[in-house]
Each structure stands twice: as C-alpha cells, then as structure tokens.
C-alpha cells in the first residue's frame, strides 16, 4: 500500500520536475534569445506623446528641471534605463528629445526664461537647440 | 617661517623677478591655449601627448629622487646628509607640484579635473598616479616643514614626523613605478610595453635626480654661501653614477630584445628614435647626443679621482641630467607614438605656445623651490 503511494508520488514528482525543467529551459532560451537582437531591422513605430501634460508639475519643473535632466541623462546614457514613470502611471523616454518634443514648439521656451534669470546653461553648446533645428 | 623668504639680496630679487616674468609669459600662453584649445600645441590625432606629458614624466623622477638623501639619512644614519636632506625634500615638493601643473596643462577640460576623484576608477593608472603624487607632495612638504620648524625653535622634531618620513621612502618608489605603469600597460605601444620600464624609470630618476641635487648644492654654495658638504656631494655622486649605470644597462637590454628578436613592432620605435624610420629622423641627433653624453658622464662619475674635482663633477652632472632629460623628457613619450596604430610615421614639433607654457611651469616650480630653500637656509644658518 505505502509502497504503491510512494511509487505514485515518485511518478508525480518526476512529472513535475520534467515539466518544470522544460519550463526552465524554455525561459532560459527566452533569456538568451535575441529579445531585441533583430530590433534594429524593425521599422520604428512612433507613438505620439501625450503633450498636454508635462512629466511633472510646472512649479516643480521650474526649479528642478536641471536635476531631472541630469538624472535622466545618467540613467539613459550610463545605465540604459530609459523609462521614466510618473506617479500617475504615464511613461516617458528619458531623453532631452522628450522635452523638446513638446517645448520645441516654442523655440524660445528655454531661452526666454534663462535670459530672464540670467543663467547660461551650456546645454546648447552641443545639443541642437530648437532655434538651430529650425534653420 | 615663510617670512624669511621676503628678505634677500638684490640678486635674489632679480632672480625672483625673472621667474615672475617667465611665469607671466607662461600664463599668457596658457590663456591662449585655453581660449583656442589644445590645437595651438604641436600635438594631434596621432601624437596625442607631447612636451607636457614628457616633462611630467621626467619630473616625477626628480621628485622621487629625494629618497636618495632621505633613505641614507634616516635609515642608515648617514650624518653627511644632514644638511642636504631638506634640499632633497623641498626639491621633491616643487617637482611634484610641476608634475601636477603639467598634467593640468595637458588636459582638454581642466575644469573637470575633480572628476578623477568624483568617479574613482581603480582600474585606471591615472587615478593611482593622482593619488600617490598628491600624497607625496604633502608628505614631503609637511615633514620637511615640521623638521625645519623644530630646528628653528631648537627642539627635536615632533615624534610624528619620523613615521611620515619613513612613509615617504616607499612612497617615492611608488610614484615613479605608477608613472611607468601609465605607459607600460598600454597594448600596442611597443616602446612602452616592457616590464623594464618601471626599473628603468627608477634608475634614470635616481641618476638624474641626484645629479640635480649635486648641482643644487653647488648653486646654493655660490649664491647663498650654504655648503651642504663635500662628503654629501661625493656620496651622491656615487649613487648617481651607479643609478646611471643601471639606466644604461636597462636601455641596452631594450635594444637587445628588440633587435635580436627582430620583431618589427618592437624595433620600430627605437629605429625611429635612434636611426630614423622611412626617412623620418628628427630625433636621431638628439638621441645619440643623449646616449654619448650620458655614457661619458657616467664614466666620469664612476672614477673616484675625477668626481672629486668639482669642475668635472659639475660637468658630469650637467651631462647626465641633460642626457636623461632628452631620453625621458623628449624621446620616450613622443617616440612611443611612432609608428601610429595605423603604421603612419608622424613628426611632432612643439609650438611656441606649448614651449612658453612649459617654461612657465618650470618657472613656477623654480620659484617655489627658491622660496622653500631660501626659508630653509635662513633657518639653518640662523640668519
């Protein structure tokens, strides 16, 4: 009796292990499979950004946009972590281009305020400013 | 104590004024470099380091050679060195300072120099070099200054100076070893990719550095009537001679390995420097001058009867310093870039701007040395 139970148990465990092993190998394959290996060949799909709302409140952005940009730059350039999730669940690419995607509609957006506050950020020494991009 | 440097003869002030003028020249040249970029130098895509890094390399050696007086005096109780120890330490301070200035002058973005500390990268030899050089400067400055201060008050130096001075001994070896590792770990720069680079750096440093010290004692005797002693000079001359022998022996082994093995990559840089490569031979006369002058000087220093005569001693020291300066302060760094990774032979000629900055940095170093030694001598002679 107990012998039979243990046989059944052994059989069940063997099946479970077999299935589990199969799953493991599958997911292992998945991990080494080229998730994005062929990505460069795929045509990019452009999803429009919700341009009605910024990644954070205007007040906060006024005082903190430089820290945010620095953090984004670090994350995307050095860590490859490009997704920025806002507390209300929206997702953005951590890139200056995300900002410019909306704000460049007014090429003066950055300049006016910096001019007013008399700060001279060096961003546009290298990055193509909205004013230049229109040239 | 430093106020002692504010009293001096007319000659002293003339010398200081001359240095200040040269510093001004250097600063204006550097301003030009800052506003136009390093393109105003002779460096370029292929020879991407030039006079600055070469001077840096030479001066690290000068800084390290202070150990040649500190070690015998503190570890072996060589009383003959009692008056020269402080000269060696202060020479190390000013040489280490010049090293750092040369690095700064060479940087594309000196405003970001603190990035080296903000993002410490132990895999990079530069990181270690910055650490040990700064450490060495402060160890020597603090211990030298403290010992001098105690001497002024007529009390024995504080007990903490001793461990600091002992620490400076291995530290001196480390600065030049790490400097050699800056070069010796780079694949495909075959002139540098050699295990004897660090020993050769140390040997040439101890040869040239002690020779500079000997010359300094002569200068101090003449301009400040401060004599470090004939015995100290003689002992230093012996050290310099044997370090020079070691240097040229190691250089010879480089030649043997390169030319006997006949591996083109190993030969090419040496060929370029000493014989010319594919018609390019800008350094050939210099390198042979360096080699012959160096060997003759070492020969003079080895002979006891000759090195006891001061005029010969001076000549030999000048020859040895110049020889090693050409070898290390010109040939080694620039020759290492030829041929380039793409097998091109590119010549490098420093520009006037570059040379003015170099002169300016040397003048800053000499000014600091002058002020430090002036103070030291004033204390020692109880003026």
């Amino acid at each position, binding site marked *: 009796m107990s012998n039979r139970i243990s046989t059944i148990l052994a059989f069940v465990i063997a099946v479970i292990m077999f299935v589990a092993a199969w799953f493991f190998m599958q997911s292992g394959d998945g991990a080494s499979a080229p998730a994005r290996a*062929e990505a460069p060949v795929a045509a990019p799909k452009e999803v429009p950004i919700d341009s009605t709302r910024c990644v954070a409140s205007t007040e906060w952005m006024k005082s903190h946009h430089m820290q945010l940009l620095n953090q984004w730059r670090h994350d995307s350039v050095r860590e490859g972590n490009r997704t920025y999730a806002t507390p209300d669940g929206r997702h953005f690419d951590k*890139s200056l281009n995300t900002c410019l*995607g909306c704000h460049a509609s007014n090429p003066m957006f950055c300049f006016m305020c910096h001019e007013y506050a008399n700060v001279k950020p060096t961003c546009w020494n290298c990055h193509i400013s909205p004013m*230049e991009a229109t040239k | 104590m430093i106020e002692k440097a504010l009293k001096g003869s007319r000659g002293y002030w003339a010398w200081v004024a001359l240095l200040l003028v040269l510093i001004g020249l250097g600063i204006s040249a550097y301003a030009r470099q800052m506003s136009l970029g390093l393109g105003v130098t002779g460096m370029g895509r292929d020879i991407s380091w030039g006079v600055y890094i070469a001077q840096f390399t030479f001066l690290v050696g000068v800084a390290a050679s202070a150990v040649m007086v500190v070690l015998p005096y503190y570890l072996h109780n060589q009383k003959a060195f009692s008056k020269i120890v402080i000269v060696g330490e202060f020479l190390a301070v000013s040489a280490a300072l010049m090293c750092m200035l040369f690095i700064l002058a060479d940087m594309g973005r*000196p405003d970001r120099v603190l990035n080296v500390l903000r993002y410490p990268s132990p895999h990079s030899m530069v990181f270690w070099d910055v650490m040990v050089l700064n450490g060495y400067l402060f160890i020597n400055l603090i211990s030298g200054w403290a010992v001098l201060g105690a001497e002024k008050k007529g009390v024995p130096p504080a007990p903490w100076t001793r461990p600091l001075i002992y620490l400076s001994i291995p530290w001196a070896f480390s600065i030049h070893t790490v400097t050699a590792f800056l070069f010796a770990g780079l694949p495909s720069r075959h002139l540098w990719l050699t295990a004897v680079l660090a020993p050769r750096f140390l040997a040439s440093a101890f040869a040239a550095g002690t020779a500079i010290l000997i010359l300094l004692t002569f200068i101090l005797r003449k301009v400040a009537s401060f004599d470090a002693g004939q015995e100290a000079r003689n002992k230093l001359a012996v050290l310099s001679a044997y370090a020079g022998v070691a240097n040229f022996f190691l250089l010879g082994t480089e030649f043997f390995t390169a030319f006997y093995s006949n591996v083109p990559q190993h030969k090419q840089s040496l060929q370029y420097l000493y014989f010319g490569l594919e018609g390019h031979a800008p350094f050939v006369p210099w390198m042979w001058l360096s080699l012959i002058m160096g060997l003759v000087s070492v020969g003079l220093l080895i002979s006891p009867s000759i090195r006891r005569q001061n005029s010969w001693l001076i000549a030999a020291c000048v020859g040895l310093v110049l020889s090693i300066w050409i070898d290390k302060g010109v040939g080694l760094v620039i020759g290492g870039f030829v041929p380039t990774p793409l097998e091109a032979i590119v010549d490098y000629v420093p520009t006037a701007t570059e040379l003015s900055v170099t002169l300016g940095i040397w003048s800053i170093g000499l000014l600091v040395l002058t002020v430090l030694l002036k103070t030291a001598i004033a204390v020692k002679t109880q003026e």
Partner: protein
Amino acid sequence: MNQQRRDFLRKAGLGALAGIGAAAGMLPLFALEKTDMTVFTDKPVPGKVRWGMLVDTRKCREGCNECVVRCHHDHNVPDFGKSKNEVKWIWKSRYEEAFPTASKQFQSPDVENRNVLTLCNHCAEPPCTRACPTEATFRRWDGIVSMDYHRCIGCRFCMAACPYGSRSFNWQDPRPAVKELSATYPTRERGVVEKCNFCSERLVKGQLPACVESCAGNALTFGDLNDPGSELRKMLAANETMQRKPELGTLPSVFYII
C-alpha cells in the same frame, strides 16, 4: 524701470525672431525626432546583447565613401581635413594599415591595394576604458564602448591605449567645422574625445547604424554577436573572417572578410 524695459526689449526681440521663423513656415518642420515608445526598456541585462559588425571588403566599392560621409554628417563630426586636428569616426585605410600584423609578403595585389573600412571595434576587452580615469568611456550593457562627453576630462589616455587609432580629440572648437548641422546627434565641445558609437542613438529607435544603412553594396552586416541565430553569426560561421590585431586580446566586435 530701466532694467525692466531692457528685459522687455530683449524678449520682444527674441519673440520677433521666433515670429519670423514661424512666418517662414519653418517651425512646423521642426527636425527633432519624436520618441519611439515601443522600444522603451527598463534597466537592460548587461551582456545579453553584444552588437557587432562584419565588413565584407570584397563588396566595398573602390572610391565609394558613402558610409563615411553619412556617418560624419549624422553625427556632426567636424571636418578639419587631413590635419593633425582631424576628427574621424569611420574611414578607409589601406590593407596593411588596418592589419599591420597580417601576412603581407607575396600578397595578391588585389588584397594589397584594397581599402578597408576602419572604425572603433567596440572591443569586448577594451584597453581604452581600462585606461580612462573617470569612466567617461565605458563598455555598455550591449557591448558598445560609449563616450560620456559630459564627463570626459580630455586626458587622452584612451587615445594612447587604443591599439587601433579609433579615437579623436577635439583639439579646437568643432562647431564651426561642422558644415551642415544634423539634428540627429549633438555636437561636441572642445577638449573631449570622441569616436564611433555604433549609432547607439539609432539602435534605440530600432534603426540600423547609418553606415550599414547607407551602403549600397551591402558590404556591412550588423547584429547581435551573442545570438547564434543572427544573420551576423551565420555569416561569421560561413566565412573566413579576420579581426584587427587579434593578438592583443582586445576581442574586437568588428570582423572583416578579406
């Protein structure tokens, strides 16, 4: 009052400029790209992907410079000509320059005279990143050896360390030497090092590198070296290929068919 007035005038002036731009109908053509949300990634697994390239020198056409022009345009690489201040990301070298340690004696004249496309090899064991004191140049999660222009101090150790001459330093301000500003990539400042980035800014948008895309002769294959099923790996398996200076142990990710 005075100050206010001056500020107003200044702003008004800028506003007028913008007005002119809008009137000329240029603003709607604003050239900065939209973000491709489909390829968003969270922190990637390091080492999973290793981008690589295969250059088929047999297919590379004599006299054609399309990829070089395209790359240098897209990345705003300044043009200083063949001077000592030259900056280049990708260029053609002679066979013996690209492979100085390869067999040369009695080589077929065809091979000897062949021009070989040379660029950063995105080495798996890069000596340049080892030498860098600030990690301004570093090996990314996907095998690309990247430059952080915000961090580089311009010490040029990476240039001395690179065995392939892949790196250029900005000896002077590059902006005036960029003939036609491209909005796809920033320019650089004086005093930092730059080099090929395997078009990481295009990969993130799911595009092939500019050189690969621009080659009419199909001489360039790009893909994931870690994926045995990739076109690149299949070509590597099927052909006899070379890396530059393999004896140095840098493990280049750029391969060549001679």
